């Protein structure tokens, strides 16, 4: 296998391995959420894909233009592997979220911010931690940023930091039984992290 190649690639075994890794992490996360919130989280099969930067632009742009959509992103890094978790709330009702999180306050702009922060802390944290434990990587997490609400998505896209064309994305679609909560968690790794991740994965595959 060529290690020098900078192009991101993924073979079938590796893809399965990422999927399994995420499944286990999700299982742990769901179990914890169930205990904390007393809800049943429907566990889907995570999608592992190499995505184009334009796909991501579109996803983020949707979050900006569609007022019914909110997004939170949070950077993580450990052992030279860096990435960002992006949580996109599609058609989520804030009042359902409030009920889920036992939030009693008013659902104004600040109330919604509180909910987004609390839910994303839980979902992103649980998942990154689960993956980190299996790979024996300690990930540090930066502070979350709520897109659209306190920063313009245009500004992020303009930053010119998107020099990658293709990268690894793990996509998890969360739904919670009986409530109107529907969100996607995207784990995006930087292009240069993928080779290191693949190395870690290859150990597991051997």
């Amino acid at each position, binding site marked *: 296998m060529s290690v020098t190649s900078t192009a991101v690639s993924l073979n079938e075994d590796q893809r399965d391995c990422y999927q399994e890794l995420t499944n286990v992490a999700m299982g742990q996360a769901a179990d914890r959420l169930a205990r904390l919130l007393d809800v049943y989280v429907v566990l889907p099969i995570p999608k592992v894909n190499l995505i184009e930067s334009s796909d991501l632009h579109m996803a983020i742009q949707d979050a900006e233009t569609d007022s019914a959509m909110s997004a939170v992103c949070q950077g993580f890094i450990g052992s030279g592997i860096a990435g960002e978790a992006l949580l996109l709330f599609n058609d989520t009702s804030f009042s359902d979220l409030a009920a889920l999180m036992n939030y009693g306050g008013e659902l104004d702009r600040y109330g919604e911010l509180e909910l987004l922060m609390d839910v994303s802390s839980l979902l992103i944290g*649980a998942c990154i931690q689960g993956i980190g434990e299996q790979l024996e990587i300690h990930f540090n997490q930066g*502070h979350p940023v709520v897109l659209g609400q306190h920063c313009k998505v245009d500004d992020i896209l303009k930053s010119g930091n998107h020099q990658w064309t293709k990268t690894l994305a793990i996509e998890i679609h969360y739904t919670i039984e009986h409530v109107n909560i529907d969100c996607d968690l995207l784990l995006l790794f930087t292009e240069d992290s993928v080779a290191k991740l693949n190395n870690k994965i290859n150990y597991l595959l051997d």
Partner: protein
Amino acid sequence: MTDSNIEFGDIHWLMDILQNIDVGLVVLDRQYNIQLWNGFMESHSGLSPQKAKGENLFELFNEIPKDWFMKKAEPVYQLKTRTFTIWEQRPYLFRFKNYRPITGRASVMYQNTSIIPLESINRSVDHICVIIYDVTDIAVSREDVQSAHQTLNELNRTDQLTELSSRGYWLKDIEREFLRCQRSVLPSTLVMFDLDDFRTINGRYGHQAGDEVLRSVSEGIRQTLRQTDHVCRFGGEVFAALLVDTDEEEAVVFAERIRKMIERMEVRHDQQSIHATASLGIARYQKGFASAQDWLQAADKALYHAKESGRNKTTVYQPKAH
């Protein structure tokens, strides 16, 4: 997991680092009693570690809402995950003074916090660590940018000389009104008006005198307006008004009031007395207009007609005549 073969002597300087690092570190036990209080916390709160240790967080700092904080902290104990708070949610956890008390513009220290689980030897989480970051500069500059944006928006919306709306802002408004008219039965009317022989005024009395006339006319217009009327300086000596929920007859009354106001007005500049008149064109919204542009053109045609037929008068657009 991390290696923990740290020599005893090393602990000494590790403690030194914890003590001197410029972020706040607080360790809490399951009952939210303080177990560790580093130098940053001591300096900013004025409370020594000896005093803080063993005290309950919420009793010592009543600015921290217990329910709110526990919502962030309980998952850390129960799920062993980190949670975060940012200054946009709540400017600070601990009410500390700005680190730059003299030149800093905020009076308090804005804070982001991370709450991390601390595992004990049996792997259960009986303690959490709250890490406090000073983000005052970020918060202040974010607020600066926001207020600059707002100022820019307002500047864009008003004409500097007359303090009426700017043309761009007004045009957006009639685009909206045009769309509304397509669905509504209530009439709306545009009035365009132009000061007669303004070039002569500029030529005879100077541009400053011309500006003074524009300012006085604008002030007079402002006093004539109803709450829902929207007037802009369309360009040069041309003004335009959108009269919502107003038919032609009412618009004529409005236009005539303005025409007479200008006619009667005396502008004093450099001990000279300047008089001006205006011509006005009126166009009510018609179903036949394809765009707001058509509507504007109709008002412009009526204005042109008023000019052609002798000035200092009001003309109403007649769709059948064209």
